[in-house]
């Protein structure tokens, strides 16, 4: 109705004191919500998954209080409520339908993501260090190897080596299988596809790298180019290669590999014609 009608409803509007009370309740609920999830408050661990329905209920209460009092829907014409609730329920329905659709895939998207996940850079560095330690321990236990993998090879040291010197195929020790490293300790197969070996979809397909590598970087041989691309992936990123995304593949990802292992990988990749 007209604005005179609005004024006629003043009696139904909450008073200043009631508004302060409403604000206090909203604040209190927010503080409780924060304490529920903040680790130092010490309750989040004992709650487990029950924190989610708890938080949902508390938020729903806040939501309802703001609508009922601040937006004074409680005191207003019912049509306003129905119009708003229609939109709200449709939105809720869309959300539930979408989530059901995805969850009914039986968790496949999650498994798909897990299989192909690249750890965040920091995690990757830690992981590489752990692997290097493990390898060093294994090497110490096992029968003496011709060359021991350098467990403390940092990206900086590795980059300091000029690829031309380090990548002599002749320096490759016997016993290191490039394909094994590609799938195993190197973890390359998680992101890179090689026909008949791996199906990674994140990084460039390496199925024919043996024929393509020579022309990738002008003035650099196929061996040197592949060696550099593993040791210091961001030093040179070839153009026109699918999924060659700078920033994902960094020196940290391969820091755990010794030069011998990288050379074994180079040999393996050169064989992919």
């Amino acid at each position, binding site marked *: 109705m007209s604005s005179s009608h609005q004024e006629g409803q003043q009696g139904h509007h909450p008073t200043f004191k009631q508004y302060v009370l409403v604000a206090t309740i909203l604040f209190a609920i927010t503080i409780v919500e924060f304490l529920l999830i903040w680790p130092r408050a010490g309750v989040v661990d004992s709650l487990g998954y029950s924190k989610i329905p708890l938080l949902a209920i508390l938020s729903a209460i806040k939501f309802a209080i*703001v609508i009922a009092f601040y937006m004074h829907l409680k005191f207003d014409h019912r*049509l306003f409520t129905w119009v708003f609730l229609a*939109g709200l329920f449709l939105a809720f329905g*869309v959300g539930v339908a979408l989530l059901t659709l995805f969850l009914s895939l039986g968790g496949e998207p*999650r498994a798909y993501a897990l299989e192909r*996940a690249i750890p965040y850079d920091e995690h990757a560095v830690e992981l590489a260090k752990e692997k290097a330690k493990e390898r060093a321990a294994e090497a110490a236990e096992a029968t003496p190897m011709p060359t021991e993998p350098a467990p403390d090879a940092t990206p900086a040291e590795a980059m300091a080596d000029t690829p031309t010197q380090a990548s002599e195929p002749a320096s490759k020790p016997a016993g290191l299988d490039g394909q094994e490293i590609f799938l195993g300790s190197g973890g390359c197969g998680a992101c890179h596809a090689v026909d008949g070996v791996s199906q990674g979809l994140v990084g460039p397909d390496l199925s024919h790298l043996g024929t393509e590598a020579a022309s990738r970087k002008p003035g650099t041989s196929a061996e040197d180019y592949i060696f550099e691309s593993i040791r210091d992936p961001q030093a040179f990123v070839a153009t026109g290669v699918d999924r060659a995304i700078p*920033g994902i593949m960094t020196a940290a990802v391969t820091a755990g590999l010794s030069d011998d292992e990288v050379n074994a990988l180079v040999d393996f990749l050169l064989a992919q014609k």
Partner: protein
Amino acid sequence: MAHGVETAHHAEEEYTTTGLNHRKLLMWVFLGSDCMFFGALIATYMVYRGQSLNGPYPIDIINVPVTTISTFVLLCSSFSMVQALAATNKNDQRGIKIWLLATAFLGAIFIGFQVVEFNTFKNEGLTLGANLFGASFFTLTGFHGAHVTLGIIWLLGMFVLAVKGRVGPATALDVEILGLYWHFVDIVWIVIFTLLYLIGGFDAGPAPASGG
């Protein structure tokens, strides 16, 4: 004030089939549709939650305490908006100006928090294109921020009218509709804060692939 009464452009006896003011009903219909807009974005975030293939993940960068503070700021702005409407109804000219400006100011602080947050995330490597988390997070919170920004502009416009003495009981409906929009932005944030920060803020990335 007298000026305000004269320029009240909604006639006292406006005829409507519902018996309700058209503009107010329109605002409620818009808010209902905006529910669906944000509902779709929130559902998208929830579907993509935990599906990112690379970092940064929420636990690496989401700062729950800081965002709790900005949530308080937004709740405060809802309270001051209510006071602005109460002052309008009482024709408390000083109150109208103070509470409108306070609401706009608090809204601006909230946006300030968001700008700093977005900038921090960008420096940490989370961009719109970094991963599914970045795409769904920035789309959702960015659109909410756009709503708040629009609300601030609306509030400042109303403040200018108030300075000219053109806001009073006769134009209370204008302030009320502005208030509805502002409170709606607040309740959307209540939902976003719970889902993206309280519940989703501690999501870690997938465990590093074992042995590739």
